[in-house]
């Protein structure tokens, strides 16, 4: 080995130690996730199939940053003029929730109804029986007709309420921490330090695992025994988190890159935003592993539908998108754009199949059955 080679092998590159500390537990987590060869032999194809599938998915996703960038920019652009929605309809069905200074509105196929006053954010309970709303330092739970059921308050503003998938608890951020309160307003307690992105529940069997951001770290905790199941560092503070329906993929959205983690927090895929654009929001579809991404570029936005490693830029919007949510059946996507809501029907293999628009009555929040 040359003297130059020896020197280079012993020099530490910038960021090497910190990167090692982050990458090491993830590599070990990956091997723990995979069953051993001997066990696989014994269990034959029954065990081999999911592992191979996982490796295949990882293989498909583990592409270089360069390949990502090329694949993100697709020419398949479908810019459609949206068709106004008739007042007495709601494509996608269910009940769409919007909130703002004008009040809290529920829009159904019968049209919009104001059910409550000025609120900050709002979230449906899983079956749409209640709405959790924030108003400054207050968290209020109201019925769909606007009757106040209970409320609590903190010293600091309350943000990002999120109902657990079985509706038993509500997670929310306040005062630099993530808190949990039972669905009837009892047992309000702080779980851990957290800030930034809205907490999201992992759709796993126990329905007790909550993901939140603490600075640049994404944490998955069990809310029953308070164990930290993983803590993965991101390059920047995450803007949004979203789990796939099977609870096996976590989308971590940062301003200039996207990471896809597995259920153990190991990074499977990273993609950087092209020059001049930034990520705004993104989320997994209600079923499967398709997901949606909104990128901003100046005063306009792009909607991208992602299916595996294929990305199609499907819509160029003149305006900034401030919210995204799927219809209860997952066949329609609502985008909050300025003072209107755009409803699009995503076809992950064939671009868009319909674009409609309607007045927003505030910011887009949630969509329930």
């Amino acid at each position, binding site marked *: 080995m040359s003297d130059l080679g020896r020197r280079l092998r012993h020099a530490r590159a*910038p960021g090497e130690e910190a990167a090692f500390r982050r*990458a090491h537990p993830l590599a070990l987590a990956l091997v723990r996730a995979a069953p051993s060869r001997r066990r696989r032999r014994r269990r034959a194809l029954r065990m081999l199939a999911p592992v191979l599938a996982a490796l295949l998915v990882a293989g498909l996703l583990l592409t270089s940053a360069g390949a990502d960038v090329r694949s993100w920019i697709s020419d398949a652009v479908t810019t459609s003029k949206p068709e106004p929605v008739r007042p007495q309809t709601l494509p996608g069905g269910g009940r769409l929730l919007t909130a703002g200074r004008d009040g809290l509105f529920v829009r159904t196929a019968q049209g919009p109804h104001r059910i409550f006053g000025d609120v900050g954010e709002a979230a449906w309970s899983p079956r749409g029986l209640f709405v959790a709303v924030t108003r400054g330092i207050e968290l209020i739970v109201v019925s769909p007709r606007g009757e106040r059921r209970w409320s609590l308050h903190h010293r600091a503003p309350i943000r990002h309420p999120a109902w657990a998938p079985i509706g038993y608890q509500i997670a929310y951020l306040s005062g630099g921490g993530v808190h949990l309160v039972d669905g009837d307003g009892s047992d309000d307690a702080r779980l851990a330090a957290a800030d930034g992105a809205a907490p999201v529940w992992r759709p796993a069997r126990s329905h007790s695992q909550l993901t939140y951001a603490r600075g640049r770290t994404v944490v998955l905790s069990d809310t029953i025994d308070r164990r930290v199941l993983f803590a993965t560092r991101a390059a920047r503070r995450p803007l949004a988190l979203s789990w796939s329906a099977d609870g096996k993929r976590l989308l971590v959205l940062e301003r200039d890159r996207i990471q896809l983690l597995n259920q153990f927090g*190991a990074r499977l895929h990273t993609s950087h935003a092209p020059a001049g654009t930034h990520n705004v929001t993104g989320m997994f579809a209600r079923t499967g592993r398709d997901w949606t991404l909104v990128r901003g570029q100046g005063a306009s936005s792009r909607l991208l539908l992602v299916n595996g490693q294929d990305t199609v830029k499907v819509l160029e919007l003149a305006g900034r998108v401030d919210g995204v949510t799927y219809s209860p059946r997952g066949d329609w996507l609502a985008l909050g754009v300025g003072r209107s809501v755009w409803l699009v029907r995503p076809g992950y293999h064939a671009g868009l199949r319909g674009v409609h628009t309607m007045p927003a009555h505030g910011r887009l929040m949630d969509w329930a059955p």
Partner: protein
Amino acid sequence: MVVDADTAPVVLLRNAPRSWRERGAVRAALRGDAAGVDWLFREHWPAAYRAAWLIVRDEAAAEDIAQEGFLAALGALERFDRARPFGPWLRRIVARRAIDAARARAVRREVGAEPLNALPAREELAGLPDDVLAAVALLPDEQRIPIALRHLLGFTPGEIAELLDLPRGTVNSRLRRGLDALSEALT
């Protein structure tokens, strides 16, 4: 005591030659034993990160490349020929990914100036604690990448020519010019 080489934990091979320990670690990793993965990671990940950093000169990108390369190598371990050393195999995976990333960045550079902000400034590179690493990092892409591939990752000029899709003579001349520039910078 008779130790079954196929089931012996990596720790039992602590005093064995490095190549034996590596084979033991690969066997252990194939069994799903975290100790084997741990050994391979500690042994090979730092050089992979360093090489990726020298090629792309971007900490976040180098971390992604080294980690994704390592995970890809682990995922394909079943196909790995265990008669051969693991290190060069991993280094080839990482080198390919880093070269792809550097090429993609060069393409993006034509589109907009944003990615350039992610690159370290010349003063930052010059301020690295290791003078040799700093001097290599300051070389232009066409000299730095072949130098990193040759002297850090141990590829032959023929292999570098194949990786970079360049004639072998071009690789040799870039290596020569790079070494000349280094010797000038370090004296």
